Each structure stands twice: as structure tokens, then as C-alpha cells.
């Protein structure tokens, strides 16, 4: 048996030159297929195109009122909070999870920042730090339940959503801290509400934070080992584990980061609404998930780009503002956004299906 290696060599030697292209015979591609293939290569391309199209359409419909630097940057401002929570949501969804508690973590963190400052007289800067820590802790609780107790993320965050929200109401005693008071005693809380102008365009620091966060995360996901591990965990957790990824650590880090980002969103929220109100952000979950979904990240994990999420949030922002300016009944807006979700994902699916 062991003497047969020589003969085998011969066969292999002759086989090699011809056996090169088993799976890749060339073929002519139609233009359509080439477009699909291109779109498939860049996961954020579809939402980006939809975004540009919708800006153009509303621009044509509404004219200069919409197509002004003021209105366009207004969209950015309106989208900032959704964009930030959607960034957190994207991370979690990339690991094949879902975080229903983003809104609750956001509002509870903002309430903690406010109450720490005003109830206990802690300096605002420290209170903010504590609030960010609290958000992280809430995220870690989610992460530990998911990673170590191996509970499904949907269920864990369905539970903690209710828990954090109830805790938020109980702790805050439903008290709102008024904007005027904050302005006077703890302006740092409103930092992200400050704005600067470039021409007619108005940017708040909240918008800047959103952009920095999204591009920073995009870099981390693409260019660092941690990012590759996030994708691997979402793709196939068991396989990632076997090929040497510390899946538990990755999961906890993702949920913790999600909590931290939501706490940041809470801080931005104070800046945006001026006051600290325990009843804000009730729709943040749905809005964040909607942005992620329209942005083309797969709910099954491991596929998609956080830049897509940014586009998704902006698309919703453009539609909302555009339809509002057009004077559409709000219910029609909801109806159209419902359709937008389905259509966006259907296009995405079509691209994936045809060009593998």
C-alpha cells in the first residue's frame, strides 16, 4: 500500500493543469446580471440608491423648501437618535440577535443622568459618566443572559425591555426635569443639542456623534479582528466557537456596546428634547429595527453593513419629512413606511437570489 505513492503522483501531475476551473466556467453576463452582481458586492449600495432616489423624488415634488440645506440637515437632526440606536441594534442583529430593549436602555440612561444630577446633586459630567455606565451594565445583563444562559436574544430582551422600562418609571416617579432647569444647572446634559452652522446647513453635535459612531463602527467591523468575530458569530455560532472565536466574550461585548451606545443616545435625547422625560423613546425599538431592516442587514445575522443602517434611518427620515411637508395624513405616512419596509427587503432579496 505504501508503495503506491509514486504511481499516484503521475496521475495527479497530469491532472493538475486541466483541473483548474471546476467551479468557475466563464459565461456571458447580461447587463442586468452585472448590475446585480455589483450591488451584491456592496451591501450598502441598495439602501444608498433608494436614499438618493427618494431625496430626488421629494425634491422634485416639494421644490426648494425641501431641497434646502436647512431641510436636509433637519433630516439629519431628526434622524440622529434613531440612527444611534439603530447602530446599536445593527451590532446585535449582526450576531443573529435582536435587542428589543434599546429604547428602554436609552430612556432609562437619560433619566439616570438627569436624576443623578438633580436628585443627588452630582456634577453633571460625573452623572453622565454614571449614566453611560448604567447603560453598559444593562447591556451586559442582556449579553450575559444571551451568551452564558444561552437564552434566545428575542426573549431575553423582551423581558429586560419590560424590566428596564418599569424600573425607569418606578425610579423616575414619572417626573420630568424641565429644560430650563437643566440649562441653568447642568448644561453638559444638553451638549449634544448644541448646533453649529455651515452655510444654511445646521448641524447638532448629536448628528456629528451619529456619523462618528457609524463610521467608527463600520471601520471596526471591517478592519479589526473583533469585527470579523462579530460577523462570524452571527454567521454560525457553533462554527465560530470551533474555529477559535471566544463567542461568549464577543456576544457580551456586543450587547454591552449596544447598551453603551443606547446610553449615548439617551444623552443625545436630552440634548434634542431639552428636558429629561421618562416617557420618551417609546417607539425607539420599532424605529431602530425598521432602519436596520431597510438598511439591508439580515435578521439571521452575519450579513449586511452598518452603513446600510445609516441609509435606512435616513430613508425613513426623508420619507417622514417629505410626506409631512407634502401635508400627508400621518396614517398614510405609516402605511407608506410599512410598504417601504417590504419593498426594500424584497429588492434586497432579489439581488441576493439572482447573483450569488
Amino acid at each position, binding site marked *: 500500500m505504501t508503495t503506491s505513492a509514486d504511481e499516484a503522483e503521475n496521475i495527479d501531475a497530469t491532472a493538475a493543469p486541466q483541473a483548474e476551473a471546476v467551479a468557475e466556467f466563464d459565461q456571458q453576463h447580461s447587463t442586468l446580471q452585472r448590475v446585480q452582481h455589483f450591488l451584491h458586492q456592496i451591501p450598502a449600495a441598495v439602501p444608498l440608491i433608494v436614499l438618493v432616489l427618494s431625496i430626488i423624488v421629494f425634491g422634485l415634488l416639494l421644490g426648494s423648501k425641501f431641497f434646502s440645506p436647512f431641510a436636509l440637515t433637519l433630516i439629519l437632526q431628526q434622524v440622529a437618535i434613531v440612527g444611534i440606536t439603530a447602530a446599536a441594534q445593527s451590532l446585535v442583529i449582526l450576531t443573529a440577535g435582536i435587542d428589543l430593549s434599546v429604547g428602554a436602555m436609552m430612556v432609562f440612561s437619560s433619566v439616570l443622568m438627569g436624576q443623578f444630577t438633580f436628585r443627588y446633586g452630582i456634577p453633571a459630567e460625573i452623572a453622565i459618566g454614571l449614566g453611560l455606565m448604567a447603560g453598559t451594565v444593562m447591556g451586559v445583563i442582556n449579553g450575559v443572559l444571551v451568551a452564558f444562559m444561552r437564552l434566545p436574544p428575542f426573549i431575553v430582551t423582551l423581558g429586560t425591555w419590560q424590566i428596564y422600562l418599569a424600573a425607569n418609571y418606578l425610579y423616575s416617579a414619572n417626573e420630568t426635569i424641565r429644560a430650563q432647569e437643566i440649562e441653568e444647572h447642568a448644561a453638559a446634559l444638553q451638549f449634544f443639542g448644541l448646533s453649529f452652522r455651515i452655510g444654511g446647513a445646521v448641524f447638532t453635535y448629536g448628528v456629528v456623534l451619529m456619523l462618528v459612531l457609524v463610521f467608527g463602527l463600520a471601520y471596526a467591523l471591517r478592519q479589526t479582528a473583533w469585527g470579523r468575530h462579530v460577523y462570524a458569530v452571527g454567521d454560525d455560532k457553533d462554527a465560530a466557537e470551533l474555529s477559535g472565536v471566544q463567542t461568549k466574550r464577543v456576544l457580551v461585548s456586543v450587547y454591552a456596546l449596544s447598551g453603551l451606545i443606547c446610553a449615548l443616545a439617551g444623552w443625545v435625547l436630552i440634548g434634542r428634547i*431639552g*428636558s429629561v422625560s421618562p416617557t420618551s423613546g417609546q*417607539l425607539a425599538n420599532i424605529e431602530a429595527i425598521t432602519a436596520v431592516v431597510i438598511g439591508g442587514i439580515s435578521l439571521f445575522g452575519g450579513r449586511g453593513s452598518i452603513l446600510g443602517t445609516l441609509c435606512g434611518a435616513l430613508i425613513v427620515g426623508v420619507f417622514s419629512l417629505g410626506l409631512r411637508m407634502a401635508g400627508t395624513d400621518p*396614517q398614510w405616512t405609516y402605511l407608506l413606511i410599512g410598504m417601504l419596509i417590504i419593498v426594500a427587503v424584497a429588492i434586497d432579496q432579489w439581488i441576493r437570489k439572482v447573483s450569488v
Partner: protein
Amino acid sequence: AAQDIGACLITKTDTNPFFVKMKEGATAKAEELGINLKSYAGKIDGDHESQVAAIETCIADGAKGILLTASDTSSIVSSVQQARDAGILVIALDTPLNPIDAADATFATDNFLAGELIGKWAAAKLGDDAADAKIAMLDLGVSQPTVGVLRDQGFLQGFGIELGDPNKWGDEDDPRIVGNDVTAGNEEGGRRAMENLLAKDPMINVVYTINEPAAAGAYEALKAIGREEDVIIVSVDGGCPGVQNVADGVIGATSQQYPLDMAALGIEAIAQYAADGTLPQPTEGKDFFDTGVALVTGEPVDGVDSITVEEGMDLCWG
């Protein structure tokens, strides 16, 4: 010309009949005056973010005036300030802002008074039995929005129960209160809350409800155990189904508000302001323009002013 005058109506939701009616009133008046009105609303009660976005849209849109029923009365203040800085007249409808002078004017019902009226009526109706009444309090939501708190506390004051913190419901320790439960202001919530409290004490004989849909739900719960005849239900709102329910004996008395008036007056004020810059003035002795509240009941009692069901039907909305 009047066509150039843009106005915005921003309500808490566009699903609650109260706001639907408000929108109808505003739309009718706007058409009459040739004002270009756009309406916005939150998706759910408490959806503050959508209201902020709506104000920003109005600013971008170059509107002359905004009519606002705020979901979050103090948080909205900075957005309102932005609008006022942009030269827009902001009128708070139904719900005063916190502080009240954050808006240029407030056209509202006195919700505390509305509660007080039904409280007094219920106490008078029971007479001596009021001393050992068993009261169920069906409130709006756990986040205790101000409107709900004002009505609740007004009712208790009117009934003669000592209040705890008047900015909060549920902290009273009067033994006559069987309990508080939340209804979300709809029938399903009203029925469930009533059932829950009945399970706690089946002998409840006074039911305060945040609004008439909740009252209708509570009535169903009472009917299911056959006690609908010997329990007094009081409510606030004065919508047509609610007043009809007073006529049918479902609700004993309700405090009627006038959302159509609020909205129509608001639109007129905007037209006025656009024409010559005059600001609307508050009712004498109050810091807001009181659009009035009236107790509607088929069984008037001494010491509490009320209007009849027929009068209520003429004035009702929804």
C-alpha cells in the same frame, strides 16, 4: 393674502376621537378663513419625538402659527421656543405647557375643574353614603400624564378626599379608595381594570374613569356581574358617544370639554396674528383662555351646576 398663511395642528395622536374632532374643527375653520392647514400627530399617546419633528417641519415649512396639544408638556418647551424665535405664533390647545407661558397662548379646558365637577356630583349623589363609599379609580397610564393626574386629583378633591402629592395619583391613603388601575383610555383597558378592582372588592359603588371609552369598558365589566344598576360611573370628555351613554344611564355624569371650539378659536387667533400681529388674551383671572367645561348629567344635584343631556348632545363632539 390668506392663502399664504400656513398653520399647523399638532395633536397627541390622530386616533383618539377627541383629537380627531379637534382636527375637524380646525380644518373647517381654516377652510372658512382660507388658511392652509397641515395636521400632525404622534403615533401613540406620549410620542413626544414625533411632535418635535412636526414643529421642526412647520418651521421649515414657514408656517405662521402652530396649534399644539403637547404629549410632554415640559420637554416640548425648547422646540416651542425655537418656533417662537422663528416668528411663529404657538398656541397650546387642551394641555397647558409647563411652564404655561412657554406658549403664546393656551386654549384649554381646566382638567382639574373637570375632575372636581364629577367628584362633587358623585359625592352629592351618594349623600350620606359618601362617607363609606368604595371608589375605583380607572386612570390613564402608568407614566401618569398630566391630564390624567389633574382629572384624577380633581375628582378626589371634589369628592372630599384628602390628596397626597397633587402631581401624582395613587398616593392617597383614604380607605374609601379600593385601588387605582390603568386603562390606556380605551374600552378593553377599562373593562380589565374594572374587573381587577372588582376582584379586589366586589362592593365598589363609585367608579371614576379617565374618559368615556374607559367608562364604557368599565360598564361592561359591571354588567357581566349584574351590578351595572347600583354603581355610579363618572367620566370626563363629553364626546357624543359619551353623552349618549349618559342618556342611556351607562355613565352617571361626565364633564364636557369643547375641542372643536379650542381648535376653531386657535385658527382664528392665527389668522388674526397673521393679519395684524395681535396676540390672543387669556381669560380674566386665569393664565389661559378657558374654553369651558360643563357637567352633563340626567340627574342634576344641588350645589353643582350642570347642563342636561339634550344640551350636552348639542355641544358634543366625536
